[in-house]
């Protein structure tokens, strides 16, 4: 079977990236089962840290190896249970413990290891936490790990490398394949709802695994990337803006769209804007309805961050630039002049 670590947001909803990972697990269930070298045991491994499995696992049912199970750490809301049911999850492992309230990668990973199958697949979305937890899980179970998987077929797994400029084909040996799914490798897809069985556990958390627990979280607006990653419209600004003081037009357009500003690495490297606004391989990966790239040539590191945008618009002086060629729509011209005119047009239409 396939165990998916599911992240939930503050409201207890399943994160979009986790819904993608569950969908990937379900739609690739047969391939994943074939790639995992031996048939799954189908029972939680019951390693020492798990004291009791409160609910009894039902006998029979569908083929164990094709089952998708979810692990939720912390509170499990009714909304999340319903979402997971619509995503085809048959079993939800609910891992809650006072020592797991604050995030600690080692402790959370051990909780996952405690309920992971001995054979099959353990996966998460390729978020920072998903990556970190799966790496811990891989080491603790003595397995290999593949990060940012985008596809699976009979020849193995395919994963993003070089910031998405190429794919690596690989096969993981070992009974349990540990992997993360690249963001937006697939769209969340609902199926005939299941009635997921929720399993609660009494967990033992080792003191040693709490050494790296989060002490506190400091909320600083300057570091907040949620506006950028959740915006429906993102206006991108690159070197073409020209200077630290050249953001006037693009910021006005951001305002007209109730959107967010995203910048290229050159812009943060020059100190024009904070890193929290950076879009790309080492910044945020965004999924807006529209991304308007102003004065951005389209280096692969930047393109890696905007693959999830539904519509791409480029405003650039170079018609041959990667960004223009990869866009759906483009205006060839100076970004200050063009964006200024776009702002004016929006203002005049608003009347």
């Amino acid at each position, binding site marked *: 079977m396939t165990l998916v670590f599911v992240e939930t947001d503050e409201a207890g909803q399943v994160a979009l990236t986790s819904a993608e990972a569950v969908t990937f697990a379900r739609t690739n269930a047969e391939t994943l089962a074939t790639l995992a070298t031996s048939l799954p045991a189908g029972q939680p491994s019951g390693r020492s840290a798990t004291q009791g499995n409160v609910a009894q696992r039902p006998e029979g049912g569908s083929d164990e190896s094709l089952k998708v199970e979810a692990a939720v750490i912390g509170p499990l809301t009714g909304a999340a249970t319903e979402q997971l049911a619509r995503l085809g999850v048959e079993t939800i492992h609910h891992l809650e413990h006072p020592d797991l309230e604050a995030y600690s990668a080692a402790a959370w990973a051990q909780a996952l290891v405690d309920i992971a199958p001995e054979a099959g697949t353990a996966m998460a979305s390729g978020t920072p936490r998903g990556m970190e937890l799966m790496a811990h899980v891989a080491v603790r179970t003595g397995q290999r790990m593949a990060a940012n998987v985008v596809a699976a077929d009979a020849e193995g797994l395919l994963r993003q490398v070089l910031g998405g400029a190429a794919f690596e084909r690989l096969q993981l040996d070992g009974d349990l394949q540990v992997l993360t799914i690249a963001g937006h490798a697939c769209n969340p897809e609902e199926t005939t709802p299941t009635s997921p069985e929720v399993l609660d556990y009494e967990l033992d958390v080792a003191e040693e695994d709490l050494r*790296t627990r989060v002490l506190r979280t*400091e909320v600083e607006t300057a570091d907040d990337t949620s506006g950028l990653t959740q915006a429906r419209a993102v206006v991108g600004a690159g070197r073409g803006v020209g200077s630290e003081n050249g953001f006037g037009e693009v910021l006005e357009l951001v305002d007209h769209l*109730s959107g967010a500003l995203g910048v290229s690495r050159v812009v943060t490297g020059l100190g024009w804007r904070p890193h929290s606004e950076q879009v790309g391989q080492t910044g945020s990966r965004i999924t807006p309805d529209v991304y308007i790239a102003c004065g951005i040539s389209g280096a692969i590191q930047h393109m890696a961050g905007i693959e999830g945008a539904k519509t791409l618009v480029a405003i650039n002086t170079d018609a041959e630039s990667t960004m223009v060629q990869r866009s759906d729509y483009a205006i060839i011209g100076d970004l200050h002049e063009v964006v200024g005119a776009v702002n004016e047009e929006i203002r005049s239409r608003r009347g």
Partner: protein
Amino acid sequence: MDILVCIKRIPDISGQITLDESGRDIDGSGLGHTTSAHEECAVELAIQTAAATGGSVTVLTLGPAEAVDQLRAAVGVGANDAILIEAEDPGAFGPEDIAQVIGDVVRDRADQGQSFDLVMLGNDAADTGDFQVPIRLAYDLDYPVLTGIQTLSAHAAGGSGRPAGSGGSAGSGGSAGSGGSGAIEAHGIGLAGTEVFSLDLPAVIAVQEGGVDPRYPSITGRMKAKKARIAEYVAPEPGAGNPRIGLELPPETASAVTILGEGPDAAGALVDVLEEIGVIRS
């Protein structure tokens, strides 16, 4: 605080890539080489932290003989010395192998009297993107590990420490910090804001870009880099090996761009598109 920073020689890519004849790697001919952005930040953070605590920075790489260029570049911006673990074909090593070889060298340096309070790496390498070497290394060394760290503060308790990177001037005082005692406060971006961790040393930290700005080498730095002492090791044969079967390039898609026009006159056409998508604030 004595710090080891692990870096990796990678091809400097910005545009189209092609594969070599084996299909296992990209064609590096004609490409320059560099290190990952996260690693440049790790080097910078290490230099600031070592300066604030009266320690030193050693850079290490597992790579071909030419990777000495990347080691010297790190010395040029302020690292004190360097370690090259020479491997003719670094692509034959899997993440498990790399972690184990680095772990063995760290233990060997300790036997020779050079111990590190902190081992720093980039969060992931820009080429292979494995997201696991720092964590595997930490387990190999039996150290605690954090990932996604952007700034450090050498004094864990009390909060009097000035985070390296967000301050600008070095903190005063500081523990002598060799021999692996003490603690450090680390900061990374979490889901709801900056997450703060306290970490007992020795430890492994994977650094994420965004907390510090890597510096450029000075003239004296360049001179120092040329003469830098580089300890050399020869990598053993890889054990687990690289699970890679081959590389594949995404299919070339013909451009489907609709050119709305040239210059400000095209503004109306773009506003039409934005209205169609429905993103203009009313």
